[in-house]
């Protein structure tokens, strides 16, 4: 102690007394320009306070003489993006759905806009991948109740199904047992017939009667061959896709109590370009006709 600093024999420089594994730290003086550099940075900071936003005030902050703001820069960028988007959306207003799908530029825009709108509005019922669920149609398969062309999809989105819009797509299946149109036994028989035309296991003994009942009650909507009618949104009963389930119990429940799936009309909720974009997007999911 007592001010006697250890001096390194080799370099003649005093040490700080710090030692690691026998290596001692030399207390070399800092170069003077280093000090000047520090003073320069201090002077720089004063200039910075004047030029750039720097000090918080009670309800505001010093804005600096050039008025730079990151927030304004962001708003600027967003406004530019908005303009660009509006210009691109503008080209979709008058374009036909087919043209949108054919033009790579418009199609790209519609796909992006449609995907975003789908996630926000449609995914709660149809699922984020449009795979649907019981009562909510899968939009990526090739089975369509009301048609799978661009135009059909567009109409469905615009006006909805069994909704409150005056142009909504509408149809209603009777509740054959509840409304006492058929007896329980007749319902069982027609269910066996439906199982038979969709190629599933069925009770051979009942299908003859079932066919009779089907011809009398069901063909108006589901057609004589059971393949359905898109004008009425009547599903094809001979394929593998079932909105409410294709097993015996599910079909029986459908016949006995009917089903009444509702989709809202979007025309009042979304702008025309978004709805067009949605139609293009849904059409591209794999089942578009």
């Amino acid at each position, binding site marked *: 102690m007592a001010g006697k600093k250890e001096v390194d024999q080799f370099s003649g420089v005093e040490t700080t007394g710090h030692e690691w594994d026998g290596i001692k730290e030399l207390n070399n003086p800092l*170069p*003077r*320009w*280093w000090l000047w550099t520090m003073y320069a940075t201090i002077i720089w900071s004063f200039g910075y306070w004047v030029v750039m936003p720097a000090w918080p005030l009670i309800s505001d902050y010093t804005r600096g003489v050039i008025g730079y703001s990151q927030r304004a820069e962001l708003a600027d960028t967003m406004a530019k993006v908005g303009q660009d988007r509006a210009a691109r959306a503008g080209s979709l207003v008058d374009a036909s759905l087919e043209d949108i799908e054919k033009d790579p530029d418009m199609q790209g825009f519609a796909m992006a806009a449609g995907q975003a709108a789908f996630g926000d509005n449609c995914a709660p019922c149809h699922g984020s*991948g449009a795979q649907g669920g019981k009562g909510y149609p899968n939009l990526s398969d090739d089975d369509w109740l009301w048609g799978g062309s661009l135009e059909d999809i567009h109409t469905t989105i615009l006006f909805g199904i069994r909704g409150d819009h005056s142009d909504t797509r509408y149809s209603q299946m009777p509740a054959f047992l509840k409304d006492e149109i058929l007896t329980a036994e007749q319902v069982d028989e027609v269910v066996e017939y439906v199982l038979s035309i969709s190629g599933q296991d069925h009770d051979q003994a009942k299908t003859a009667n079932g066919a009779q009942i089907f011809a009398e009650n069901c063909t108006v909507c589901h057609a004589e061959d059971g393949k359905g009618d898109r004008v009425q949104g009547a599903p094809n009963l001979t394929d*593998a*896709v079932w909105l409410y389930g294709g097993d015996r119990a599910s079909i029986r429940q459908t016949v006995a109590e009917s089903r009444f799936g509702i989709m809202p009309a979007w025309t009042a909720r979304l702008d025309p370009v978004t709805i067009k974009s949605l139609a293009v997007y849904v059409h591209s999911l794999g089942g578009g006709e």
Partner: protein
Amino acid sequence: MAGEGVKAAASVNRHDVEAVNAASRRSLYKKREKIHPKRMEGTFRRIKWAAMAIFLGIYYLTPWIRWDRGPDAPHQAVLLDFPARRFYFFFIEIWPQEVYYITGLLILAAVGLFLATSIAGRLWCGYACPQTVWTDLFIAVERFFEGDRNERIRLDQAPWSLSKISRKTAKHLTWIVIAMATGGAWVFYFADAPTLAHQLLTFDAPAIAYTTIATMTATTYLLGGHAREQVCTYMCPWPRIQGAMLDEESLAVSYRYDRGEPRGPHKKGEPWEGRGDCIDCRQCVVVCPMGIDIRDGLQLECIQCALCIDACDDIMTKIGRPKRLIAYDTDSNIQARMKGEKPRYRLVRPRTVIYTAILVVVSLIMVIGLMTRSVIDLNVIRDRNPLYVMLSDGSIRNGYTLKIINKLHEPARFAISVEGLPQASARLLGFDDMSEPVEVAPDALRSVRLFVTAPRAALTEKSIPIVIRVRDLDSGTEVVNDTTFKAPIDE
């Protein structure tokens, strides 16, 4: 005073204390001592001139080399095109997803530096580092206007005169012109050089070009003209790191104290017996751009420029002693000679072998990568939501997004096929059938949707490996991507 202190001792408490700054009377800060290196001609000076010419030539001229890549691509051999996200290096063109080539180059550079250092010390510092090269150039300019060492020292001490002002002004102006050319050359690496040069001269260039040039001019002028050895001694991390690559077998500019000591002045005709060859003339110190004495041993400040070798060789010739009292030598050789053993150079050491091995392996990987680099790229993204879709006839469909990259500078047409599921059928969204070629614009990426549908009966496993093949119809080049087909089967 002391007597009073003793007298007062009974009534006053004595403190065993020292003033905080008493231990050292020296300043906390060190003034820079200006160094006036003397010019000395010799082997290493010539090597350094050559190295300077080569490195400065590469730096200033590279952006002007033209390279024909076709009509839609830049004609500059070396170009870092940030807006278009492309790096061009002669026949190599790097896309953003290929930055690993740059990583590879950086690894090669680092390991190369390690290898060179372990063989012969600070070769980089001494000959190739921009700080060394530009400082060397700036010192040459200084010498041109102000003369050699002694003249410069006299000029610095002389009172201001017209001649002093004009010589100093000419020096600083020349430095600034060199600095501006340095900054100017830098920006040419980032844009088409002739176009940018024209824009710069007509004050039409982007603001970033001017600010970059201004910054580079300022730093070059400051670091090459004024900071010089301070950069190496105080700012650069490499002098601290490089010691880890050295061992006692590494060559380094060394004063052979086994031969030089005991040193001392020598008069002509005096015998050389019983003394060393060093006549303590300090030629080695005056030529040193770092202003140090190599005879103090290996030190952090020494950039190993080897100029002191030339200086001492000159002296040794004059006094008729063998050259290379200062030379590239190894510590173990000096030790060996002192013990009377034969010196030997060991180039092959674990250290150099390992660095060389890494260098060779990384180079090989890079070369193989570059040689097999395809001009088309395929990325297949399987749909995960939903994993599969059941169609009305009960068959199963999987969806894939194909990202096809065409790196050519002309449009390409591709045929896409799916293999691995013979019963499956494939369809491209927006295409009539699979035989319709997929066109991809020059230098662009195109996304297409692929649907693969297989009858339920054909699916026996939950996950079936399939292969998607993309073939360039013009060149026949193919890329394949392995993926899977998912089926609704519980295992």
